[in-house]
Each structure stands twice: as C-alpha cells, then as structure tokens.
C-alpha cells in the first residue's frame, strides 16, 4: 500500500527514530511502512493520522479509485 509517510515526516524534519518515538513503535516498523513492506494495523493507522492531523485516506492509498 502506498503512503505519504516519508513525505510528511520530511516536511516536519523528523527522523525515522523520532517518528517511531512519537508513534511508540520501533524504527524498523516506520521504515517498513515507508517502504511499503508493511501495512500498519488500523489502530496504528489512526495514531499516524492523529499525529499528522489528517485522515487515514489522505496518508494511505490502497490504489482503489472506486
């Protein structure tokens, strides 16, 4: 699943470790989400959306245009 996490993080000048700290997950988890290797759970997706004050669908794109 594509996502804008890396862009959003860069806009705030945060490192992966810093974002991981804010989300209370490992840095490896942030890296895996950014590179599309891992899709976050729904609770984590909500935490990410709240952190960036955005909707989940504004951050994550499952490619379904319908």
């Amino acid at each position, binding site marked *: 699943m594509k996502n804008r996490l890396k862009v959003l993080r860069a806009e705030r000048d945060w490192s992966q470790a810093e974002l991981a700290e*804010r*989300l*209370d997950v490992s840095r490896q988890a942030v890296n*895996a989400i950014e590179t599309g290797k891992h899709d976050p759970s729904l609770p984590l997706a909500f935490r990410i959306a709240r952190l960036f004050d955005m909707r989940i669908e504004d951050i994550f794109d499952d490619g379904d245009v319908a």
Partner: protein
Amino acid sequence: MIWNSNGELGPGEARNRQRDRKQWLYIGFAGAIGGVIGLFTGIFDQGDGSLFTGDWADLKLPPALAILLAVMLFGGFVVLPISGFRMIDDYKREQNLIGFTGGCVSVLAGFPIWAALHAGGFSPAPHAFGVFAIAFVSMTASFLYARWRL
C-alpha cells in the same frame, strides 16, 4: 517536546530502550536455560539413549532433575516467547508470525515426507527429536527470511 537534543530521553524512546533491554535480557536468559539444560543432560544422563538417533526409551535422568528440566523448558519455550510476543510492535509481531508459520508448515509437510522416504528405504524412521528439529530450524530460517528479505 518529545525528541530532545540535550541527551534526555523522550517517553517513547525510553519505552523502546526499556523494551530492547528486556528483549536482550530474555534472549540471554533463554540461552542460559539452553546451556544449563544441555550441561545437566550431558552430565547426569544415566542411560544409553540419544536425542539425535531417536532411542528415547534408553534416556535416563534423576527424577528431580527431570522435573527441573521440564520446568525450565516450559519457561524457555512457553513463558519467555509469550512474554516477548506481548512486548513487540505490529511489524515485529508479523515477522514472528511468519516464523511460526514456517515452523508449523515444515512439520505438517516434513513428517509425512520423512515417513514416505523411510517407507521407501531412503531414511531412518521419523522420530520426535527430528520433527522438533525440523520445526525449530525452519521456524528460525523463516523468521530470518522475514526479518532480512521481506
């Protein structure tokens, strides 16, 4: 401010470091348990059996030591993994589940394949330790594959 440049740890980083410390403590403890079990089994084994060749009936240990080993094995293979599983995040939990799946599938496939090969005269008869080893090795390999390649 969560992220500090002055060397102080934020709450998330402190939790992560504490989690990492606990994980390494558990890994060290599990290794120590394995070492003690191997040492005791080697020193106090009173029979002629062997884990590796399948003649389990000839394995003999003092009853008290056998109970102690059973308790330690329960700790090492049940309590520690479940405790560790509760400490990790979604991503690492997924890697662990891939590892467990690899171990389980290998046993489901490995035992009948081994039995068929034995029936054809290609291998010794399947035995419990061999099946355990298949599960353990394939679980570890699956976890490492998930960790480094996926």
